[in-house]
């Protein structure tokens, strides 16, 4: 938060040489003062290996307006590892024992990794 406020102050110093601070600038400052909030990303990997491709996903973003969004076929990341490279932290790994392996019946899609990021 401190870094974000410092960046805002630097930007306003430059701006004030040419124009006044606006209410939008103050809204931006308020955003800088927000405590980081937890984002959760479910990634269903095609194996327990973090390099495996992704079968399904869901992103819970508490900072966006809670309103319907259209479905997507655009993968947020190609793998769990790629999400980690973008700053996501794994908070739950799939537990193999939870995935039944009996004959040919099945009731799951992929191996569930739960990741978080504080933004």
């Amino acid at each position, binding site marked *: 938060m401190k870094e974000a406020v410092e960046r805002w102050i630097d930007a306003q110093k430059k701006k004030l040489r040419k124009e006044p601070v606006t209410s939008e600038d103050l809204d931006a400052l308020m955003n800088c003062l927000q405590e980081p909030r937890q984002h959760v990303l479910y990634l269903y990997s095609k194996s327990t290996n973090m390099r495996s491709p992704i*079968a399904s996903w*869901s992103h819970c973003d508490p900072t966006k307006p809670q*309103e*319907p969004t*259209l*479905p997507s*076929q655009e993968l947020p990341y190609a793998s769990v590892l790629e999400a980690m490279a973008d700053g996501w932290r794994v908070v739950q790994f799939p537990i193999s024992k939870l995935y039944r392996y009996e004959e040919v019946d*099945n009731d799951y*899609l*992929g191996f569930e990794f739960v990741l978080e990021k504080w933004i």
Partner: protein
Amino acid sequence: MTDVKPTMTDSDVMDFIAQGYVLLEGIIGEDFNSQCDALPKGNANAFISSDVFKKELLLHPKLAGVARSLLGENFRVPDGGHHHVYEAPHYGQTWHSDGLSGSGYDVTTLQCYYYPKAVEIEDGPTMILPGSHCRAVDREAIAHYGDVLGQVSLTVPAGTVALTRYGIWHKAGPKTNDQKRSMIKFSYYRASSPIRDWQIDSKEIPEYKNRARLPYVTEVESYRDRVRRERTWNWLCGVNT
């Protein structure tokens, strides 16, 4: 229903076994589609069991031809169902299969979705997950599932009917506008033992020709899918498995 002609070939039936649904786009004409405008939401038993619904829709040669192909002679025509109507924007439903459906490899029920009006992506179309129809699932345990690679949003022209193997994962998709979206749901049922009596070229039963792996399916699941599909094929052909 002995006068209903099957419309599907071996290859069509194999496709259905892999995908779990058949989509008949725009088969019902505007004259009948517009008769559904005034139908209230909720229980639609009276409308679905009416002579006009039976004549114009349930016994439409293309629709009944699929039912005849997959459910055999003397299949039971729906005599009730439900009218699903959405108007206000909403998040959409979570993935589910209806009732306790999904387990097993038979085809005894075809659940149908009929759209009297065209459905656009903003209208919150029904979404289905091809190939999920034999995965019995606890809907509350997967309520956090989001987008799935290979999911299909049924954005369709007016007069479209989707026939699904009861058990396919589906949901009402997220709706971002306030246009009325209407879907009438009903089911055909099997009333005879399975036998390969759809459109066939020879009496010799071919082996199941496996279909492509679905986008969300893992390596081992693709092997399981092949076994599941072969079992359904053999079951439909009346071959002991």
